[in-house]
């Protein structure tokens, strides 16, 4: 059936399968690392802002400006510019390993902003009650900001993951592979419509899974 509906995919079935693995790899590794980094940056943005619990206009302004700078750089340019650094950090600038670092740099600014807005949504009264308990800044971050925002954070993480999937389609320029690149190589370059469709279906499945997980986490943590 596959070979009938998707002849070109069937022809390159191993590569196709491999692409899926690559995409999942990229998403998981990049996802986890950029989640952690964005969490830190997002928290920093929230606590250092004016009226934040550790207000520090200098740190806030620097972070704010850097994020804007990186959001201004088209991703393809970013990948190219990062190659030397990628090599130092990942040992290689090509293949899945070589895509992780640029993907992280590409998504973290957007992700941090999303985390920032998720944390800012928290009721200020909860933070204040942490302060009156005599909790330290770190304890407030851990036990109130993060703990009470899990549902919001999972919502913005879903949004970000879907944007990240979009970025992984561009990493073909460094031989990153992945399902988006498969679509470009076969669907775009070779005009094989079935390849395009197969890729979109896979991406749709991934998006849907990400969304279901996000909704589930969000629901489980809302009381």
């Amino acid at each position: 059936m596959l070979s009938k509906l998707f002849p070109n995919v069937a022809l390159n079935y191993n590569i196709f399968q491999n692409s899926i693995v690559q995409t999942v790899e990229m998403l998981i590794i990049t996802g986890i690392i950029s989640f952690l980094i964005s969490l830190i940056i997002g928290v920093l943005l929230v606590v250092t802002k004016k009226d934040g619990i550790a207000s520090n206009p200098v740190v806030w302004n620097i972070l704010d400006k850097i994020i804007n700078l990186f959001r201004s750089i088209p991703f393809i340019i970013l990948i190219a510019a990062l190659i030397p650094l990628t090599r130092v950090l990942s040992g290689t600038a090509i293949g899945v390993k070589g895509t992780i670092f640029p993907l992280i740099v590409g998504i973290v600014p957007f992700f941090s902003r999303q985390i920032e807005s998720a944390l800012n949504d928290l009721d200020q009264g909860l933070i204040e009650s942490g302060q009156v308990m005599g909790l330290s800044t770190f304890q407030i971050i851990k036990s109130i900001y993060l703990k009470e925002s899990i549902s919001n954070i999972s919502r913005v993480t879903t949004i970000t993951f879907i944007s990240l999937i979009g970025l992984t389609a561009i990493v073909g320029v460094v031989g990153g592979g992945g399902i988006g690149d498969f679509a470009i190589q076969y669907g775009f370059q070779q005009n094989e419509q079935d390849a395009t469709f197969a890729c979109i279906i896979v991406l749709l499945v991934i998006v849907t899974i990400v969304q279901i997980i996000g909704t589930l986490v969000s629901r489980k943590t809302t009381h």
Partner: protein
Amino acid sequence: GVLSGCGKSSNAAATKTVKVGVVGTTDNSIWAQVNKNLKSEHIHVKLVPFTDGILANQAMNNKELDMVAFQNRAFLENEEKTKHYKFSVIAQTYLTPMNIFSDKIKSIKDLKQGDKISIPNNVTNAGRALKVLEQAGLIKLDPKAGDTPSTSDITENKLKLKIVQQDPAKIMNLLPDVAAGITNSNFVKVAKKDPINDAIYKESFSYSNPANKPWINVIAVRSSDKNNATYKKIVKAYQTKSVTQIYKAKFNHMYTPAFKTNN
């Protein structure tokens, strides 16, 4: 290490894997044949596909690839010049024509004032396309621009043709939006047209013609590796009849071998 051993089984000698950077998937069947030819030598070519050659060259310069096989001499030379790479050509592979196509007109004579012409949006192919237009007598280019002129090197454009740069893969799809377009033959074939017979203008086409030398595709390595015995074996395995047969079978007259077969 340049060559990574990849022991397959205990009884055979270790197979040497050579990483070859390619762009696109067009040549996959050719390299499959080369691998067949190399089996007895215990050499395996592993293709690393890129969507853009620039980063493939960079990867080779950084020793992440052993070999690249996607570009023509002009592209390579431009890359060597702008990035200061030290690469060497160890083999020529094929030459493909770059012709002019149209959905609207039958001949370039039908081009009117102000018509749009699509050309690729990467430097070398754009240069080559401009050269084709010059050959067709539609424009004149500044001779100082060399093999890869850009649109700013046009010195005469009587018909005031508008040159539009697009992704070569999509130029055939975009023909309805322009008077004519020029793109690489593989993309013409993908669009189910004959790269030669369906053209409204054909460039003069022979690999012995010195004018075409810049457009011959090559296999390149870092200069320090140009005498590598393994790579020579790969070249030998490539420049065979089995490969030219695939050229013929798969690409018809689109791929003209740019080497003499050695068996």
